[in-house]
């Protein structure tokens, strides 16, 4: 293999690995949007909240118990959000709910920092950041572990939604509210369960991203990386989020490796958004999103 090609493959593979983790963050948005039609602006704050809580619990409880405790906190948070934020706003315009999630996001960021402090903290999950060498390719252990964890979670969610009665009920709610009510599924409880699942996703995303970037305020900005993923994949599609995450990850790394040196840098950072803009022009509902045709 020539040097350039090897370099390209290496970038693409590491991009795909990071992409799985983008998919994971985007998945949190997709789950909530599908079930309740809300774009959950607080997803990033939930990720930060989960990571800060974990780091806060760690010294006293150890890794295993801490993760369980954080999961419990996020599930409790989901039910509280349904009761306090969503239920009073039932049947209000989507914009009202969107605004409410903005407020929720700031509240969670503030609450987390009030409890656990504003100092950036490291999160060591016991995986050294030294690369594996596979067939001449350098692959980060952290990327591999992150991709594996995210991949397992995504597969688990797919099985859950396709094969369990609970998953069937949640899919029913996301498909048609009126029909779901008519077979006796209470929307509020379904929303709470969905937010709980999005909370679990936030825990995994918080651990994986926190271990890479450190646990700090900017962790909630990882959610911004999910925006191009959502636009490219279609905000209603789980397979779309997965595929688009991979595309964004690979594109970002390839742009960083090949284009940045030519123009002096910067393309890596905006390449996902550029891709998203191209999609907005030519395929505004994304790869797998529902094409909405309205009579005007």
């Amino acid at each position, binding site marked *: 293999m020539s040097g350039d090609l090897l370099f390209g493959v290496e970038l693409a593979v590491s991009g795909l690995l990071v992409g799985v983790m983008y998919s994971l963050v985007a998945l949190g948005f997709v789950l909530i949007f599908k079930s309740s039609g809300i774009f959950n602006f607080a997803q990033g704050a939930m990720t930060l909240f989960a990571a800060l809580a974990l780091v806060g619990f760690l010294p006293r409880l150890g890794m295993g118990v801490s993760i369980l405790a954080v999961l419990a906190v996020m599930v409790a948070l989901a039910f509280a959000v349904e009761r306090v934020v969503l239920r009073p706003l039932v049947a209000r315009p989507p914009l009202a709910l969107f605004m409410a999630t903005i407020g929720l996001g700031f509240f969670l960021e503030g609450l987390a920092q009030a409890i656990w402090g504003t100092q950036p903290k490291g999160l060591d999950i016991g995986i050294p950041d030294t690369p594996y060498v596979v067939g001449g390719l350098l692959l980060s252990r952290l990327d591999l572990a992150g991709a594996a964890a995210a991949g397992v979670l995504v597969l688990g969610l797919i099985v859950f939604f396709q094969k369990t009665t609970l998953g*069937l*009920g949640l899919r*029913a709610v996301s498909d048609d509210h009126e029909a779901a009510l008519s077979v006796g599924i*209470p929307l509020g409880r379904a929303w709470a369960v969905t937010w709980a699942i999005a909370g679990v996703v936030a825990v995994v995303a918080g651990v994986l991203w926190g271990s890479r970037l450190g646990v700090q305020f900017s962790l909630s900005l990882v959610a911004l990386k999910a925006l191009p993923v959502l636009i490219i994949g279609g905000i209603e599609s789980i397979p779309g989020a997965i595929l688009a995450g991979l595309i964004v990850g690979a594109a970002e790394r390839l742009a960083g490796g090949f284009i940045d040196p030519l123009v002096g840098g910067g393309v890596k950072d905006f390449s996902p958004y550029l891709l998203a803009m191209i999609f907005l022009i030519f395929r505004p509902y994304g790869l797998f999103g529902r094409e909405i045709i309205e009579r005007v």
Partner: protein
Amino acid sequence: MVQSSATETGAHAGGVGGRPKLQVQGVHINFGGVKALQGVSLDLLDREILAIIGPNGAGKTTLINSVSGVYHPSPGRIVLDGENITYHSPARIAALGVARTFQNVALFKGMTVLENLLVGRHLHMRSGALASGLYWQLAQREEIRHRAVVERLIDFLEITHIRNALAGTLPYGLQKRVELGRALAMEPRVLLLDEPMAGMNMEEKEDMARFILDVNDEWGFPTILIEHDMGVVMDISNRVVVLDHGEKIAEGSPGHVRGDPLVISAYLGEEAAA
């Protein structure tokens, strides 16, 4: 002729009667200044098909919506098997066994026909799908039983060939049939059908009428059937209630209602009745 009593039955039904399964008592619904329903009362008896007919805007769908909890009457009461359900939420009323279909079809369009019917079984799955999901492995035997119920319905409604098709991709007539199947999968105590034949051609209407009759013969779910077209319901209903401008203007056997001057004037205008 006097208004029909509980003992007056149509030609085909066996065992209609007994205590009312569903009672609608003096129901008023107002939308701002519009009086959609003005003191409508009716009883639905076991095993009977009760048709509600009336011109556009008579309040037929509003009546179904107030039974299924979308609107809450004020004043007025909805009583299911002696239990007051007037202020229950739609999900709770469905959970008590009131199944319905919608005028404009509300299917889970992104799910298969089979899945649509399985969701209809949701209430019978332990304490409901939302609670039972995690015990999925343990519930295998129960799962097989639900499958059997659903497969029987698929067979009964002659939709075997489309069982794995996405509901949203089906032609309108078949969507209506799948929606009926989902309501039947609930093994309802009361079945509410909102214009099950609307927008169908003659052949599809006849098919749907046959299914409704067969369902009544087989399971005898007490059924309220809303229909705009008077001709269609005459053959399949035990009793008919006629609404006009939110009021009940007639009630009785199909033959009786057909000859009622008030009904004729509601449908054809004042002069025709004179």
